[in-house]
């Protein structure tokens, strides 16, 4: 990987330098560096004249290589006569190709544009797939890194998080690993003279750097002692923070950083590649408590396997290391360790999306190839006479075939360069569309690998679309093509070519149907997602989070005093109609526990006990968010301040689960179970609609709300979400909210300030990206197929002028002729649909995990897709059909 410190050549310059390999070796050795420097200088000089000027300069310089390189070769080979003819013929072919392109600039531009679209889609998608799946983490021997966690199917949790004492047992007993570490994502309030910002980082165990194989570039990382049970105020800062906060100063080690209103000492600086798992600005010691009691599962784990150990061996080793935990406290084996490849763990969410995008882009390229192959074939048929003359004059079929291949290569090369540039732009567009959907460790850049891939695509493309017409001259009947005047040249000859042309269009339509159906399904699924009721009314709601540092707000009572003041001041602000607080906003954090409900049917020993989402909320929260009550009432803020009263509002899911046969659970009681059980008995006062807490895509778990005023001096809640409902514009509200918070405590940053609608949109941004990408693919496919139909029918009409003329001379009406041609177009569509429909159904079943609320066999989508194809086919057939109907029998027959 390149370090950000080395001066980076721009992508275009690297592309240009790669193309310089076309020059003769001696010229390359002597001049390449100077040529590249000259190009880079002039390119940056062109920057001031705008993007178009730069693009033009880059393209013209590339053409300069293409024009000059053959000459330079020829000039040198000229001294060596035996190689001259090959080279000369290549140069001649190239010149010939360029001349024939410039003679028909319109069709040539269309071909180049078509291919460029295909190449662009593939380059962009490859960069993403490469970044996600192919490129390893930037750590030494990254293939030996594994992700650790724990699972508890009985709690309905695939990932529980790791329990600290469990980890200690593993670390002590497991033999298959070089090192093992925990991390926990955390964020802090970072203060300096200019104000307060929120910074995200990791709390890590001391051997975390050893697992990843990272050394600090300055200072050191934590010692075992600093990672002991008592917190130590030391911090290791990331490269980015070092640059922005300390301007890369080398004497940063030993300096102080004010974190959560407390001074910390900087002991080291991390290298840039340590940005794991993304957007990490610092490391703090995890300071786990080995004597921690109870079921607290919250950490992520990473381990480095010993050399030669397989994942399966490591997994078995971890399970056997876990045995004492089961013996000690979990005889039912409810919680067990889980281990997977590190990258595998991080890309799971993207796998289907990456595959779908890759397949979609490939289909677009294939359609583009079929389209261009058709166009080239039609061209070569029109050029039969020219080719026949060349062959009659002694050119071998091989020679003519090579001429055609050279043409395809030249076209593909130009298209490839434009496509790669457009593809790069596409990557930026995709990244901009989903900035926080792409994990920080993914390097999305079009570099050498992307270039190599693009080059491969270009060459393969050239072969695919160039081969078909290139094979034609061998079969060409020279005598037949040269026979002037014979009606035969216009009707009988060219049947095999027409079949081939038809076949290409049928393929295009079949593939276009796959893309159209896929994009229809994805867009409909996205529409369904958007219309999914999130369980609250996001319009007019703004949310943010605050994290009160323990140094200033020691316990729940002090915190509660702050929050009730905040809520009151917010409510008093003009424009704000209501405000409330909750520990976990929708799509936010998760705190879970287990409940025992009074009067619930007893649970069998092996029956699952799903975890319950626990939130603390103020009474104003429900109204502010627009959460609907189905039974009972909300709790009041003062109600929980009465000692021993714990009113609770539960969601429908929980009500259904614990009291399946009770119509109205209000007044019933429940308490926490398991090790964390306290004696507090909660009384249900109301039931609310489910809020889609885990995103619109995921099912809701059982959940409950306790009152945020249910506090005492022993508890501490690290952060609260604040929700504001307002009638006025969000911008005014956010400014007002900032002012209120600053008045109460100038050292508190507002975290994740956004509209609730933005949060909803963000939770489905992935799906939006893929739906939009497929819609774009589908549109391209449709227009290419349309162009294909148009080209074939135009060709056919041209060929059949005489026949049509005869028909009309014999009394056929214009309408009949139009119908004749349109019917021919529809025949191709019908064939394409017959072939494409099973493919589309197959593709849709692969997408099924992305399809919310719409079946993979949803008939409406398929009917619309087919209708769209047929409709556009009719429209694109009408133009050649009307031309055919306009045939004047006299001229049509006359020039035969």
């Amino acid at each position, binding site marked *: 990987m390149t370090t950000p410190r080395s001066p980076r050549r721009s992508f275009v310059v690297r592309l240009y330098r790669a193309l*310089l390999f076309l*020059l003769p070796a001696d*010229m390359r050795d*002597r*001049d390449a*560096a*100077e*040529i590249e*420097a*000259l*190009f*880079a*200088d*002039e390119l940056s000089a062109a920057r001031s004249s705008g993007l178009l000027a730069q693009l033009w300069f880059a393209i*013209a*310089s590339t053409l*300069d*290589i293409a*024009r*000059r*390189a053959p*000459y*330079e070769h020829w*000039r040198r080979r000229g001294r060596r006569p035996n190689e001259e003819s090959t080279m000369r013929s290549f140069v001649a072919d190239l010149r010939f190709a360029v001349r024939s392109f410039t003679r028909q600039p319109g069709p040539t531009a269309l071909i180049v544009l078509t291919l460029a679209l295909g190449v662009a889609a593939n380059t962009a998608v490859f960069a993403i797939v490469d970044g996600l799946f192919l490129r390893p983490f930037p750590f030494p021997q990254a293939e030996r890194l594994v992700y650790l966690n724990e699972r508890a199917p009985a709690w309905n949790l695939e990932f529980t998080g790791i329990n600290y004492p469990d980890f200690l047992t593993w670390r002590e007993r497991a033999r298959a690993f070089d090192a093992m570490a925990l991390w926990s994502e955390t964020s802090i309030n970072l203060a300096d003279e200019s104000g307060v910002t929120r910074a995200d980082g990791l709390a890590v165990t001391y051997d975390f750097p050893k697992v990843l194989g990272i050394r600090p570039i300055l200072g050191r990382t934590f010692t075992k002692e600093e990672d002991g049970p008592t917190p130590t105020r030391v911090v290791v800062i990331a490269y980015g923070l070092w640059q922005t906060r300390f301007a890369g100063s080398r004497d940063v080690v030993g300096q102080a950083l004010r974190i959560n209103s407390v001074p910390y000492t900087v002991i080291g600086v991390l290298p840039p590649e340590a940005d794991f798992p993304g957007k990490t600005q610092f490391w703090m010691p995890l300071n786990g408590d080995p004597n921690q009691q109870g079921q607290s599962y919250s950490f992520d784990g990473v381990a480095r396997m010993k050399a030669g150990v397989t994942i399966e061996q490591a997994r078995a080793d971890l399970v056997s290391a876990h045995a004492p935990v089961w013996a000690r406290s979990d005889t039912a084996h409810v919680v067990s360790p889980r281990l997977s490849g590190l990258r595998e763990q991080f890309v799971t969410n993207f796998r289907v999306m990456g595959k779908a995008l890759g397949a979609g882009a490939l289909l677009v390229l294939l359609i583009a190839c079929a389209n261009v192959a058709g166009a080239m074939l039609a061209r070569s048929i029109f050029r039969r006479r020219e080719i026949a003359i060349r062959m009659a004059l002694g050119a071998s079929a091989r020679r003519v075939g090579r001429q055609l291949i050279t043409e395809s290569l030249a076209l593909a090369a130009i298209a490839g360069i434009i496509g790669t540039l457009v593809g790069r732009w596409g990557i930026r567009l995709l990244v901009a569309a989903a900035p926080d959907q792409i994990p920080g460790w993914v390097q999305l850049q079009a570099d050498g690998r992307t270039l190599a891939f693009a080059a491969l695509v270009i060459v393969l493309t050239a072969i695919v679309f160039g081969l078909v017409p290139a094979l034609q001259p061998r079969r060409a009947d020279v005598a037949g093509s040269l026979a002037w005047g014979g009606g035969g040249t216009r009707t009988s000859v060219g049947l095999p070519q027409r079949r081939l042309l038809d076949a290409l269009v049928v393929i295009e339509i079949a593939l276009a149907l796959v893309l159209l159906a896929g994009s229809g399904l994805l867009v409909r699924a996205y529409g369904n997602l958007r219309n999914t009721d999130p369980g609250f009314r996001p319009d007019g709601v703004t949310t943010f989070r605050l994290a009160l540092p323990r140094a200033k707000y020691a316990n729940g009572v002090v915190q509660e005093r702050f929050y009730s003041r905040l809520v009151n001041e917010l409510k008093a602000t003009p424009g704000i109609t209501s405000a409330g607080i909750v520990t976990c906003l929708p799509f936010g954090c998760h705190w879970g526990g287990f409940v025992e409900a009074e009067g619930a049917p007893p649970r069998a020993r092996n029956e699952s006990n799903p975890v319950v989402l626990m939130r603390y909320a103020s009474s104003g929260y429900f109204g502010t968010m627009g959460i609907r009550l189905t039974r009972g009432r909300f709790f009041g803020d003062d109600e929980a301040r009465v000692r021993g009263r714990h009113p609770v509002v539960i969601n429908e899911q929980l009500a259904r689960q614990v009291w399946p046969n009770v119509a109205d659970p209000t007044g019933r009681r429940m308490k926490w179970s398991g090790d964390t059980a306290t004696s507090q008995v909660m009384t249900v006062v109301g039931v609310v609609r489910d809020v889609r807490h885990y995103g619109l895509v995921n099912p809701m778990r059982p959940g409950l709300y306790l009152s945020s005023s249910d506090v005492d001096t022993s508890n501490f809640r690290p952060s609260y979400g604040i929700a504001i409902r307002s009638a006025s514009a969000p911008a005014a509200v956010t400014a007002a909210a900032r002012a209120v918070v600053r008045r109460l405590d100038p050292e508190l940053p507002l975290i994740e300030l956004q509209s609730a609608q933005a949060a909803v949109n963000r939770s489905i941004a992935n799906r939006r990206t893929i739906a939009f990408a497929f819609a774009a693919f589908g549109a391209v496919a449709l227009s290419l197929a349309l162009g294909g139909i148009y080209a074939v029918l135009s060709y056919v009409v041209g060929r059949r002028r005489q026949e049509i003329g005869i028909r009309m001379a014999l009394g056929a009406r214009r309408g009949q002729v139009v119908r004749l041609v349109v019917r021919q177009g529809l025949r191709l569509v019908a064939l394409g649909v017959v072939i494409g429909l099973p493919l589309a159904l197959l593709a849709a079943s692969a997408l099924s995990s992305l399809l919310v609320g719409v079946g993979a066999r949803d008939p409406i989508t398929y009917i619309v897709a087919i209708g769209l194809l047929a409709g556009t086919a009719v429209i694109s057939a009408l133009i050649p059909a009307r031309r055919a109907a306009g045939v004047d029998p006299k001229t049509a027959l006359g020039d035969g």
Partner: protein
Amino acid sequence: MATDMRRHWFFILLSLAERDRHGSGIVRDVLELTGGELRLWPVTLYGSLDELREASWIRELDVAPQADEDRGHRRWFRMTPQGRRALVAEIERMQSLVGVAQRRLARVGESS
């Protein structure tokens, strides 16, 4: 082809007739000389310089005459006496060409 090359050669020589230059200096000067009409693209420029050197019309300087103000342009070129003669001959040839053409056009103008 030959006339095409001549055009490049002609302006490169004309540019070097004033003083020694490096590649990028020649590009700028020729742009200016031709009012932006002729841009010497990088590969064409260095290919032509190579040809001119083979013809001994220019030579490469061993030491850059100016301080290395722009990195990457360490190669400077100077016109040789043969080069100057070739340039002068070319200009004379063009002059006589122009003379012939003008005389002919003047006569055509009278008769019509």
